[in-house]
């Protein structure tokens, strides 16, 4: 039965696609392809790491090339299936998305190398590496998609993979953590889906550039405040913001340490990214209305996270609270809404991805060297390995926001942006949080590293494949602490691109700006 082809050229992208534009969809596609390959080779345990680590290294290269492309040529778009936007699903890479994607890929590569010794044969049989690749497909897709329903789909992809990772090994303790994690995340995801359905009912479009245009044109008669509030709640839950942060300390200490490290680096930051995308780019005026609520939530998240960190004796739980405290700083930046505030939030998110992953790795190694994660039992780490202690100390300073490490600059940006609008209380909270975090990590260093060991330590050494990624991530925080200028200018451009999305819209709809 021959079908006469209809002429569809008016609805299709007719210009040939430049090879550079392929970089926009390659990160998730590459991860899916290699993830599927690893899943097929699930039984060949010795092959898994040999394929996964190079695959993630290629992902880092793809993201770096995409960053170079976007930094010179502005946002890049590719539409699935050749259909013109808003009907075709658009992938749009702007600076914010690419910076997050690149940092995520670096974290995943470090995690994959670190896992060479941390994940044993059993964990590999359960499919650690395929899950990691599929998680990265979800994370990269979420950072690069230009369609809000597609963002939901990538959230699901990364959520399903993270369920697999968190239960790796199926210990009862892990199942307990996984149930809390899964249940509360599913509530947030459902809320996200409901809100997106509502948004589609209002705008009749899911393309983010299209929504930004339509929201700006007909702001007065649309219930955008409802949408912005619902998104704030849904993504705030994903990001573990107060008062919906309780799932994180309940679950992050249960999986393998390297899995916690990857979660701390990747998952909550996807929530922050989605908040930036929706509240800054799509609904800026509604965010303005909500700014005091967001600032209060951010301040409470910061302080309670830091206090929680002081109150814990298990270092993995302590780090869970440190993740939450960092989310507070990003929310504070988001609440300010000025380019400095948004830039600070983006910079802090990138810093937090690197540093929190490295800290969990350090905690895992400390646990391995001293045979415990309990601060009451830990001790004598300094005498075991001076190099490891030095790396840990750098990370402790970085997470507390002390100069000259990478945590310092974004806090300065957020504090300065807060001072510019006279929000002195927020500045005080940011500084107080830095002080409290310093106390929390000073306590860790004094007890676990300085204090002589009570009993004889187990005879363990740090394998190079576990130390190298930790050292590399630590080196990154030092480099960005000492030479912040390139990254500062990138995040400032990224923040401007979010606050004034003309270039983003122009990339999706050429000629409609």
């Amino acid at each position, binding site marked *: 039965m021959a079908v006469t082809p209809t002429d569809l050229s008016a609805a299709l992208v007719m210009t040939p696609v430049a090879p550079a534009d392929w970089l926009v*969809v390659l990160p998730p596609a590459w991860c899916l392809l290699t993830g599927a390959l690893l899943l097929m080779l699930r039984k060949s345990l010795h092959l898994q790491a040999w394929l996964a680590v190079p695959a993630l290294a290629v992902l880092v290269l793809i993201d770096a090339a995409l960053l170079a492309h976007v930094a010179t040529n502005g946002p890049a778009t590719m539409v699935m299936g*050749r259909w013109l936007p808003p009907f075709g699903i658009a992938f749009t890479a702007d600076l914010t998305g690419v910076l997050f994607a690149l940092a995520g890929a670096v974290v995943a590569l470090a995690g994959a190398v670190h896992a060479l010794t941390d994940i044993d044969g059993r964990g590999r049989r359960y499919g650690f590496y395929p899950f990691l690749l599929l998680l990265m497909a979800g994370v990269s897709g979420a950072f690069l998609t230009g369609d809000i329903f597609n963002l939901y789909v990538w959230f699901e992809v990364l959520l399903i993979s993270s369920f697999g990772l968190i239960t790796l090994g199926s210990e009862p303790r892990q199942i307990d953590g996984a149930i809390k994690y899964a249940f509360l995340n599913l509530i947030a995801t459902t809320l996200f889906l409901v809100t997106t359905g509502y948004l589609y009912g209002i705008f009749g479009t899911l393309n983010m550039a299209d929504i930004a245009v339509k929201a700006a044109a007909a702001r007065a008669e649309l219930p955008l405040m409802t949408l912005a509030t619902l998104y704030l709640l849904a993504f705030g839950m994903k990001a573990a913001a107060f008062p919906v942060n309780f799932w994180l300390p309940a679950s992050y200490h249960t999986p393998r340490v390297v899995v916690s490290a990857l979660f701390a680096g990747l998952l909550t930051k996807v929530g922050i990214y989605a908040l930036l995308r929706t509240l800054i780019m799509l609904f800026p005026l509604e965010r303005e209305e909500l700014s005091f609520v967001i600032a209060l939530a951010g301040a409470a998240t910061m302080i309670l996270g830091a206090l929680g960190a002081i109150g814990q004796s298990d270092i993995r739980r302590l780090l869970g609270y440190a993740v939450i405290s960092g989310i507070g700083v990003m929310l504070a930046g988001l609440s300010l809404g000025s380019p400095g505030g948004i830039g600070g939030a983006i910079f802090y998110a990138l810093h937090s991805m690197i540093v929190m992953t490295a800290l969990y790795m350090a905690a895992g190694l400390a646990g391995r060297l001293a045979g415990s994660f309990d601060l009451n039992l830990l001790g004598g780490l300094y005498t075991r390995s001076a190099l490891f202690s030095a790396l840990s100390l750098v990370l402790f300073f970085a997470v507390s926001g002390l100069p000259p490490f990478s945590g310092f600059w974004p806090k300065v940006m957020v504090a300065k942006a807060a001072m510019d609008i006279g929000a002195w209380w927020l500045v005080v909270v940011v500084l107080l949080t830095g002080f409290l975090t310093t106390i929390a990590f000073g306590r860790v260093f004094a007890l676990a590293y300085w204090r002589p060991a009570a009993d004889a330590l187990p005879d363990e050494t740090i394998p190079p494949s576990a130390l190298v990624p930790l050292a590399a991530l630590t080196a990154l925080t030092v480099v960005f602490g000492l030479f912040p200028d390139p990254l500062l200018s990138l995040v400032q451009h990224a923040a401007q691109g979010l606050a004034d999305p003309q270039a983003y819209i122009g990339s999706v709809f050429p000629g409609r700006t």
Partner: protein
Amino acid sequence: MNTLIFRTVAPFLTALMVLFSLFVLLRGHNEPGGGFIGGLIAVSALAIFGIANGIAAVRKALWFHPMAISAFGLFIACLAGLLSMVFAVPFMTGLWVYPVILGVEIPLSTVMLFDAGVYLVVVGAITSIALALEAGDDL
């Protein structure tokens, strides 16, 4: 469900249902059907076979591990999208070839390859769930 009638009929029923699932998969391009629903029909067929003859028989009949089948489906679905890179058109653009085999023109497309990938993902994933549930019953 260990009756003689069921055990005798099940293999024929399974074969018929798998055949029908392939028909639904191919029909799905322009009419109701497609990879997802076709895959579900195939899984029902395998489930019937499993209830009648035990999961060992299903695993033997499948030859490959169900997870490997679904991974292969994901792989070819992704590959179907990436093929458009060669032709300088966006990701997942439908590309067609019309080979003439024995005097009959057979239209083949990347869309079909993608749908076959979806079919295999569904068959592999749901079968491994079904087999795990049936295995749990034996304990």
